[in-house]
């Protein structure tokens, strides 16, 4: 089902958790809400679920005003960060809960409920845990049961709040792929909240980057990574080198020296130059626009990471760049650097 959120405002005391947020989610999409803590992503999710109410704005699920219905009437599957499994019930009863509390008129008979729960436990590949209690499960297992429980009510949409936040790194990776393939299988419109950019880029069809209660950018993982719309997005997604520069017309200057790169339409004045670590080409001294001395090199995997102290500016500016390992770098070596791809954003403060 499609979701449409319009002009949502939500404040907690004097803190604006959501500041006029608009969002459209297409049917069958797997969307990530990505942002640092305090960006309002969880609040937005909870408002869509009906667990929080906006101060103003509209929420429509499948074209129908959702704000006129309580959380229990929205048929929205919600998966909590800390699972929120019912601790006094077995795994089976946890999954069956949503079916057992249905109004008598539409409640299914016991055999149908059992069959449905069995089916869901098979789907999350944990049918062998049916008679255990939540306390006897690992974190990853609990999360999968929480998902099965949410799916039991045949939700129109599925909302996941930091679904992998409380798990260790290895289990996280496995569950990510698993969630992806599960979504391919059942195709329910899903939104998940995360502060982990890697998770968002790897799992979602579309990523919504949020900061301070506002949406900074909406796009495919490739778009938000390669074409960040704002300085915040560039800094938050992927590792960036940030240099304070001055823009005058089409000239970009660092510490008073021109960098010989076009300003790409950035307005004149103080600005920030953003370059991905691997987008900084290393060449022999004198060949590029920036120059510096390598202070330290670490090699791992296919890359080597070099710490370079830029010349000029009293050598205080130290940046980290990633270079392929085909060219051996030495500490102490003077190299020149040339940004291959970069973005310039006006300095905000």
């Amino acid at each position, binding site marked *: 089902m499609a979701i449409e959120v319009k002009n949502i405002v939500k404040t907690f005391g004097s803190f604006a958790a959501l500041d006029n947020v608009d969002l459209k989610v297409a049917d069958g999409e797997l969307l990530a809400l990505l942002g640092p803590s305090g960006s309002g992503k969880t609040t937005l999710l909870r408002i869509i679920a009906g667990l929080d109410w906006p101060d103003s704005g509209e929420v429509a699920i499948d074209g129908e005003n959702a704000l006129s219905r309580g959380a229990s009437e929205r048929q929205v599957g919600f998966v909590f960060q800390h699972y929120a499994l*019912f601790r006094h019930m077995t795994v089976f009863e946890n999954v069956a809960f949503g079916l057992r509390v249905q109004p008598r008129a539409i409640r299914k008979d016991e055999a149908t409920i059992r069959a449905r729960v069995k089916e869901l436990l098979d789907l999350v590949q944990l049918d062998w845990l049916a008679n255990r209690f939540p306390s006897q499960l690992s974190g990853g297992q609990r999360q999968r049961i929480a998902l099965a429980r949410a799916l039991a009510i045949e939700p129109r949409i599925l909302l996941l709040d930091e679904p992998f936040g409380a798990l260790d790194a290895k289990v996280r990776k496995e569950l990510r792929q698993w969630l992806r393939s599960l979504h391919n299988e059942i195709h329910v419109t899903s939104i998940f909240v995360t502060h982990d950019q890697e998770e968002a880029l790897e799992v979602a069809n579309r990523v919504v980057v949020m900061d301070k209660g506002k949406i900074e950018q909406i796009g495919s993982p490739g778009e938000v990574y390669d074409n960040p719309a704002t300085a915040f997005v560039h800094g938050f997604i992927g590792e960036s080198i940030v240099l304070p520069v001055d823009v005058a017309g089409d000239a970009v200057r660092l510490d008073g020296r021109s960098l010989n790169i076009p300003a790409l339409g950035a307005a004149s004045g103080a600005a920030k130059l953003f370059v991905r670590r691997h987008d900084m080409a290393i060449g022999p001294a004198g060949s590029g626009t920036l120059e510096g001395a390598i202070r330290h090199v670490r090699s791992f995997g296919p890359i080597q990471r070099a710490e370079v102290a830029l010349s000029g500016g009293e050598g205080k500016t130290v940046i980290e760049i990633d270079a392929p390992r085909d060219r051996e770098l030495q500490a102490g070596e003077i190299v020149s650097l040339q940004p291959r791809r970069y973005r310039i954003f006006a300095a905000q403060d």
Partner: protein
Amino acid sequence: MSMQSGLVSSTSQLRAYAPTTDVSVAAPAPLLEVARAQPVTAPRNLRTEPGPIRFIIIALAIIFLSVFVVLPLVVVFASAFSKGIMAYFAALAEPEAMAAIKLTLLIAAISVTLNLVFGVIAAWAISKFEFTGKTFLITLIDLPFSVSPVISGLVFVLLFGAQGFFGTWLQAHNVHILFAVPGIALATIFVTFPFVARALIPLMQEQGTQEEEAAISLGASGLQTFFRVTLPNIKWGLLYGVLLCNARAMGEFGAVSVVSGHIRGETNTMPLLVEILYNEYQFVASFAIASLLAMLALITLVVKTILERRLDEAEVSDGD
């Protein structure tokens, strides 16, 4: 490694490290090996207090408990049975004693039931909602504990007494609150209110609202959420609160004494009757009833221990 600490409990003794002298060299090695390398024959036993001090501390604790707790308990039962078992049961079968026992049970039933409901509501409000004046409400819940029971009783006299706030109106409509069952029940409810709420608030705060939110998002109504999710999660805490509430309700003396009026066979509860009989030198009768209250205390203790164990288990099992 803090080996200097004074009182080392028995559990931490088992986990204690060997003396500090040369452990630093073998720091990352497993504990077992360190223990083997450092036999227990250290120059001085650093792990615990010297024998005589331990002995004195333990002996003091036992003597104190014997004199102040066990001895009175023994005296109560000894005096109750001092004229033989027949006299004991005869004393309990007296109409006045029977009336007091019945009244006490009635008052306990009323006050425990109402406090169960009020306590759950108050704990729910405090632990699951955010609202202004919450801190004030928490303080208010503790008020009956911090105020002298006599004053608790006096409040009701001032409100419902002949010269009291509602006194004239009550008299005109022939409603009896003071020196009757309603007054005793009110005073008891007031004094015992904190038990259920206090037992539940920390428990419910710790459990948070996520399970309730999950239930609601799965389509459960408010009542279904309460009976299927909240109540099962708090049941042991609730029983614990009810148990203590009941013990206090049956044993309350001060507040009840002020509002009861001491009408024999009508408004005397068991604790009040114990005092009256004692003042009339009816020691066997007095201690016979006292022995019932003492027995209630013992049963309460046993059940309380069992419940505490259940509560601990419930807490241990939900770690994630």
